């Protein structure tokens, strides 16, 4: 059972998956509650374009891809605010165009030595010390932002218009959120892959929401679940020999199905118990005799 841990690459990947899973679970709470699930999917594709451009221009991958993702998120916000374009349409245009740019550059320059399969689907073998360091820095940064801005993010997510009227700087909060989302996606790419990140962002908070009705508990549970799914997925990937991203997402989906089944059954039992208890409390009434 402990066999995979004799390999250094696995231990490093295991730690990365735990941290990345927690990060995605934490950010995912706000994504799900703002009904922005599609932006996680779109931004991860936009970041792919940024990663390729960074490679071609010999810019540090983390820096280049983060800036690219952040600018894409800002462009989406700007487009939806200034024009008659819905958020989903803006995400579809901007992020897909960015992804297409990445694909076009790869097609044009055949001399790529870096594997972009790993960027698309995640590869635990490719996780380096630098990746781990970048993940730790982003975890600390995002954790600090969410911790210090807890009250502000809660109000701005629940009731943005009223929050604004109370003085919450909602526009700045949106910008800051775009930045931490872009940073999260960039450091998650190596483990989860561009095409699979959105599921890792969305599934843990949805599972947490099925189990709790309290915002604070949902954040804690989603973060822990994300980490658990990361660990479980990476561990399973070693034995079933599939890409780490696919393994993490499939493991998360399995957890989702189990929790959905549990909450559906327990919900029905609760209703049945309530009805039975209500019927027992009722005073029997004589319906009378009709001749």
């Amino acid at each position, binding site marked *: 059972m402990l066999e995979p841990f004799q390999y250094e690459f696995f231990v490093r990947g295991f730690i990365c998956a735990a941290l990345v899973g927690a990060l995605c679970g934490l950010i995912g709470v706000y994504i799900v*509650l703002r009904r922005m699930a599609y932006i996680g999917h779109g931004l991860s594709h936009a970041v792919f374009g940024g990663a390729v451009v960074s490679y071609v221009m010999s810019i540090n991958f983390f820096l280049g891809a983060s800036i690219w993702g952040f600018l894409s998120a800002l462009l989406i916000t700007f487009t939806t605010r200034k024009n008659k374009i819905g958020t989903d349409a803006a995400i579809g245009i901007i992020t897909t165009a960015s992804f297409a740019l990445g694909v076009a550059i790869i097609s044009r320059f055949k001399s790529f030595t870096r594997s972009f399969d790993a960027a698309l689907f995640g590869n635990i073998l490719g996780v380096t010390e630098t990746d781990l360091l970048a993940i730790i820095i982003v975890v600390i940064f995002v954790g600090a932002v969410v*911790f*210090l*801005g*807890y*009250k*502000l993010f*809660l*109000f701005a*997510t*629940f*009731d943005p*218009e*009223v*929050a*604004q*009227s*109370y*003085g*919450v700087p909602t526009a700045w909060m949106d910008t800051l959120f775009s930045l931490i989302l872009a940073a999260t996606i960039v450091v998650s790419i190596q483990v989860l892959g561009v095409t699979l990140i959105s599921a890792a962002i969305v599934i843990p908070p949805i599972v947490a*929401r099925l189990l*709790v*009705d*309290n*915002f*604070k*508990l*949902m954040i804690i549970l989603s973060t822990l679940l994300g980490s658990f799914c990361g660990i479980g997925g990476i561990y399973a990937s070693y034995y079933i020999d599939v890409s780490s991203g696919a393994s993490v997402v499939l493991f998360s989906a399995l957890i989702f199905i189990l929790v959905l089944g549990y909450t559906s059954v327990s919900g029905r039992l609760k209703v049945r118990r309530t009805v039975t208890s209500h019927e027992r409390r009722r005073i029997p009434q004589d319906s009378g005799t009709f001749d």
Partner: protein
Amino acid sequence: MQNTEHKNPIVELRGVSSGYPENVVLSDISLTINQGAFVGLLGPSGSGKSTLLRTILGTVPIFRGEVLIDGKTINGKRPRLGYVPQLETIDWNFPVTVQEVVMMGRTMNNPLFPWYKTEEKSRALEIMERLEISSLANHHIRALSGGQQQRVFLARALISNPRILLLDEPTSGVDIRTRHEVIHLLQELNDQGVTIIMTTHEINAVALHLPWLVCLNGEIVDSGKPQDIITTETLSRTYGADMPVIQHDGMPIVVETPRPRDHQDTLDSSDAHESTHA
């Protein structure tokens, strides 16, 4: 248009045009609301009732004119007002408890500290007890009745001790008993000195029982005490439909079966309006 019941102006709109970039909802609004007033904004859907509240809050663009709160212009900074939005705009599946919603009203008192101080929690409990929702503090907001939900958002507005309370359709979608409770509660707050501005589309059940009304339809049609301004002519200009007003025990009652006016009626009505003001 001025509410003359009280002396000190607390909210002033001077020639304000506001709304949204592609839709100027309010045109040339001049309105003075004095401290301690209880004002109802009446008008059809799309008449600018909610936009007027948002203009006072500073959350919609003001294209012309200025808004003053306590004699100071709100340009560039948000006035501290209590605001209760329409319940229809709330996401009832959002995972928050009653207490978490109430505490949101204190967010900007210590924004970068994730916990609330003991005195803030005590204040929240005090407000919730006053509104009879303290026993529901740890309940999810969806688990409450319509009246209780309205009280939760009222508590969030009151926790920062606002001198002005803005409410958007506080009696919309609730039963008669809850409507009475909400209006009674607002009257109590008003008696304690809180200036109240609320929107409503319920003429007989709510508007007629408020001390002061402003009839809106993109601009101010009329304002005054209900018994003075609730007339067939004013309602016709406000709603664009004939709404007969009858008198019962000295109180006007509106027969709410509006008939759209035809072109000739419109001309007749505007003639009448001009002669009244002449």
